[in-house]
């Protein structure tokens, strides 16, 4: 089976810092891929490389059989790769509906503004934000803003959705809601890349996990196997953590 998205030996440096260093892996349709690693491991940079914000210095990003390494962010967005931001990035003065409609109109390429609004409303219902559709994005709570990011990502009609810490700062009930949504989206065939610090969340939802450390890929595979990997334990988890989660699952 060929991967929907594959990274081939991708590197990105900022000055002397190799933030992403020779990373290769693939993602298949409908898969939920957990991307974990310590702070500064290069997770967000990797997303920036894929989405064209900070193009790779070397290596290639292949999406659907096409080299997208050098494409611009807006072109990549239109091809069906969408992302959410770790630090939420709404258009503060626009309404929640307009925020999501922007995703549908520009990346999702809805034929008209009316159609974009209709699709946006659908995503707001799915993410449980329909009741605040006409409020300015600025007025939302953090949990709602995270869901707004999610709704925006979905309105872009993605084939790959990259979620950068959508659960950070949420309480348990909110996280459960978010995970249920993520699973539903993946069931429709959308590949999900999930950057996440809460290991419990990653393990419960991911089909596969990729671990980054100092910009390098140090482990890849089944969640339980990866968490038992000695390199991962040393770099990220600590032995106690590994015993608690790696052994249990």
């Amino acid at each position, binding site marked *: 089976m060929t991967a929907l998205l594959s990274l081939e030996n991708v590197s990105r440096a900022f000055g002397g810092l190799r933030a992403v260093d020779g990373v290769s892996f693939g993602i298949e349709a409908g898969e939920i891929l957990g991307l974990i690693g310590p702070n500064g491991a290069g997770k967000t940079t990797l997303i920036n490389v894929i989405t064209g*914000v900070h193009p790779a210095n070397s290596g290639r990003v292949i999406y659907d059989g096409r080299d997208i390494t050098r494409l*611009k962010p807006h072109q990549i967005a239109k091809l069906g790769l969408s992302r959410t931001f770790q630090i939420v990035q709404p258009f503060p003065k626009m309404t929640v509906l307009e925020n999501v409609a922007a995703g549908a109109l520009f990346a*999702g390429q809805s034929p008209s*503004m009316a159609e974009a609004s209709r699709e946006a409303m659908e995503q707001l219902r799915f993410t449980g934000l329909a009741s605040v559709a006409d409020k300015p994005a600025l007025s939302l709570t953090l949990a709602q803003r995270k869901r707004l990011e999610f709704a925006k990502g979905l309105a872009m009609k993605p084939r790959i959705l990259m979620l950068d810490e959508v659960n950070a700062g949420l309480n348990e009930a909110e996280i459960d809601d978010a995970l249920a949504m993520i699973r539903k989206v993946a069931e429709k065939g959308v590949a999900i890349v999930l950057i996440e610090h809460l290991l419990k969340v990653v393990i419960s939802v991911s089909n596969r996990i990729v671990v980054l450390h100092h910009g390098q890929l140090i482990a890849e595979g089944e969640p339980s196997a990866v968490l038992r990997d000695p390199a991962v334990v040393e770099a990220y988890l600590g032995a106690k953590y590994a015993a608690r989660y790696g052994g249990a699952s």
Partner: protein
Amino acid sequence: MKNWLILLAGTGVLALLPLLGDNYLMRLATMVAMYVILAQSWNFIGGLAGYPSFATAGFFGLGAYTSAVLQGMGVPLFASWGAGGLAAVIFSALVGGAILHLRGHYFAIASLVTVEVLREIVNTTPDITGGGMGLNLPIMRMTVAEHATFFFYSMLAVAFACMACAIVVHKSKLGFALRCIQQNEDAANILGVNAYLYKTIGFGFSAVFAGIAGAIYASWVHYIEPPDVFDVLISVKPLVMVLLGGLGTIFGPVIGAFILLTFEEFVWRTFLTVHAAALGVIIVALVLFLPNGVLSLTREKLGLRRRAAGEKR
């Protein structure tokens, strides 16, 4: 729909002005129309996209000189006005490609420099443009009243076209894209907005009508020189008018144009020697105390009313 009605009604009322037969009033009305054009032009890039352009005087002066030079070569009046607008658009596309990747103050400074570059080009090509000596335009054979009426209607027609364009753009995909860019350009890019393309188009809209206005102005006053049509005030006033009226709104620029011209006339008469300073003080005070423009007052009122109605329900 409501916007169209307001525009048509407003233009209709203004169009009756020549019936009064007051040439002073006609001159003022022509100036208002010109101010509306310049303010609304700036609003496309400055208000909608949030790019503080100081290039308006460049478009205005380029339009004026293009039209003046072409008329000197025997090109008919209306064609030369159209050419003025076209020259401004082409220039905006060339310059926009070079400076629209700059943001905030950097863009402001770069756009300001484009005006100086144009002024210098005119100054150093006296064979074509008359250089610092200025350029005379063909005198038109009409009475004073006919002259006033003709230029009033010309300016009003362009102002109408510019306003109509604004109404369409505000509702369009382009307007939406520009608002996204204004609020968060990086996020807009990630959402699939081709920011560079839309900014350049927005810059083009901010150029075309300013260029035509400059062309009409040149014909109106018969004589242009670089310090007149490349005056930095032509770049600053639109910004002030839009801030006065309401940033990124459709009718804010119109309100701002009326307010600014009223103040200018009033202050000019009352404080003949220190009028520039007095005008400055008034502008600063208005911007300080009404940062969101006059339209925000009505909107706040409407908002309150709507909220009250919601509570009753």
